[in-house]
């Protein structure tokens, strides 16, 4: 159990790191676009890299934060049945846990396969300044794998593996995936 607890804390720390990276990427989008407009209209010197940089940063904003969103139980959902038929809450909770873990791990596995293919065939982004595609697409694998683990950890009824966050300590970490 101690090993599992250590791994859970490592997973939490990794999710915090991803979350901070996603937040920084969003700050980066604001900075890059503001710079682009400033140099384009005040210096008449548009950049060739602004749009593609923003595209890459957006992948990070979305997928590096997904595990954190799953940890919070903040994914958008329709809670008609759990709200109005309380007897179904527990079965539906476990359905979500199983479906969430299976689908996220499946998606992560598919994405990992694509990452490996991109590395093997040395695939670059189609851009003015091409970079290896897997540098960004790895975020998708990370996002789904991290989210899948959080779904799995919700099945822990002892509370030992209860999610924790150090960068967002004031936020409520949900126990129910449907909250």
């Amino acid at each position, binding site marked *: 159990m101690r090993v599992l607890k250590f791994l859970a804390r490592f997973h939490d720390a990794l999710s915090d790191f991803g979350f901070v990276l*996603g937040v920084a990427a969003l700050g980066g989008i*604001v900075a890059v676009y503001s710079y682009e407009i400033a140099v384009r*209209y005040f210096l008449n010197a548009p950049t060739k890299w602004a749009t593609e940089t923003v595209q890459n940063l*957006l992948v990070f*904003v979305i997928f590096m934060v997904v595990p954190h969103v799953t940890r919070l139980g903040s994914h*958008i*959902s*329709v809670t008609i049945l759990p709200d109005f038929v309380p007897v179904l809450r527990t079965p539906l909770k476990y359905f*979500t846990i199983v479906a969430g873990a299976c689908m996220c791990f499946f998606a992560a596995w598919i994405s990992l396969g694509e990452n490996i293919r991109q590395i093997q065939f040395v695939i670059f982004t189609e851009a003015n300044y091409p970079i290896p*595609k897997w540098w960004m697409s790895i975020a998708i694998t990370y996002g789904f794998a991290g989210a899948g683990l959080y779904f799995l950890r919700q099945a822990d009824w002892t509370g030992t593996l209860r999610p924790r966050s150090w960068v967002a300590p004031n936020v409520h970490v949900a126990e129910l995936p449907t909250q």
Partner: protein
Amino acid sequence: MEWWVTLSGGLAILVVLFLTGAPIFLAFLVVILGGILVTLGDAGFGMFANSLFQTASTSSLATVPLFVLLGEILFRSGSMDVVLDAVDKLVGRVRGRQYVLSISLSTVFGMLSGSGIAVAAMLGRSLLPVMEQRGYDRRLSTGTLLAGAMLAPIIPPSIIVIIVGTLADVSIASLLIAGILPGLLMAALYLSATLVAVRLKPSLAPADEDAGRQTLGDVVRAVASLMPFTIIIFMVMGLIILGIATPSESAATGVVGALLTAAYYRRLNWKMLYRSVAEAAVITSMIMIIMASSVMFSQLLAFTGATRALMETTTTLGLPPWAMLALMLGLPFVLYMFIDQLGLMLIIIPIYDPLLKVLGFDPVWFWMLFLINMTLGAITPPFGYIIFAIKGAAQHLSMNEIFSASWLFVGLTLIAMVLIAVFPGIATFLPSLT
């Protein structure tokens, strides 16, 4: 397998999964990954991974986090309080002035933030208690807040417009600008109906409310305090209309404007800034993971032949365009009462998009009507996110009170939709100028 079996089967599974309370992105993953295994096999996995990457790296979608961040900075810095005070001073001594204040404020907030929930939560906490304390009718007060909050996703900046525009492949700039006149029309309808209601039934508003007589200096100061916000609106909408910046770039400059405004009012600090960016990142991830997971739904529809067959069937139906329009808006109107707006929108857009070409509808006009219809779902009982936001902000209100407060404004919004349907220029005039 027949196309209609594939289509209806897929839709039925999606709706059932939605209702179980599972996250919406999971429901899409189940159907899409299942669909890939059935129709394409292993060969479809690469397509799935690529569709995730392509959606997540679409530059126009960078507007979504930037609009969210713009609203977050203005709300969290407390800058919106300045707007509240200023608009309060500018609303004259009219019977029912708090109703006027409520709708006017919602309209201005809608021009600064694309989030109906944020507007509802803020006014539900700040304005509603004042209205009740001063003897305003609780039901009508709640109704004006519900309706006012509904304007935020329609008047630019609007997050939903970015998603609709990207999925339907319509000019996002045109769609954003198209929301201005319909939003103002709806605000005018809500305001007129409320004032007429007060005139017909004076007990809805106190007779001698002390609004405080404003001097010319007060009015000038109020207008001056709104100037930084006018600059933000210009940075977002003005730059798009003038063709100086793309929607994403103008959203980024809007964020800079919001930061400068917060700094001007001495409300900019690191804690507020971190919380705003962090919350914007979380909201973006929540929305965009659904979008990224769902985009391949339209490709699967095409692979199974459902898209082409649906278009052919629509052509052979021979229904007049107005009947098709009523059908295409009526069905989601009912569904939006029960199902999350974003999830349903992501199912419907890939189905409707090819039909528009067959029917010859103007895409900007149709998607604006669709957007209003969808937003209407947010205030239509029994399930609507603005309804829940008002309930969260004003716990003492019963759900029945909120439900009964919404119906008048649901009716007014339907009237606005009929007007826009009959006079398309309301939606298409401003985009035609750019």
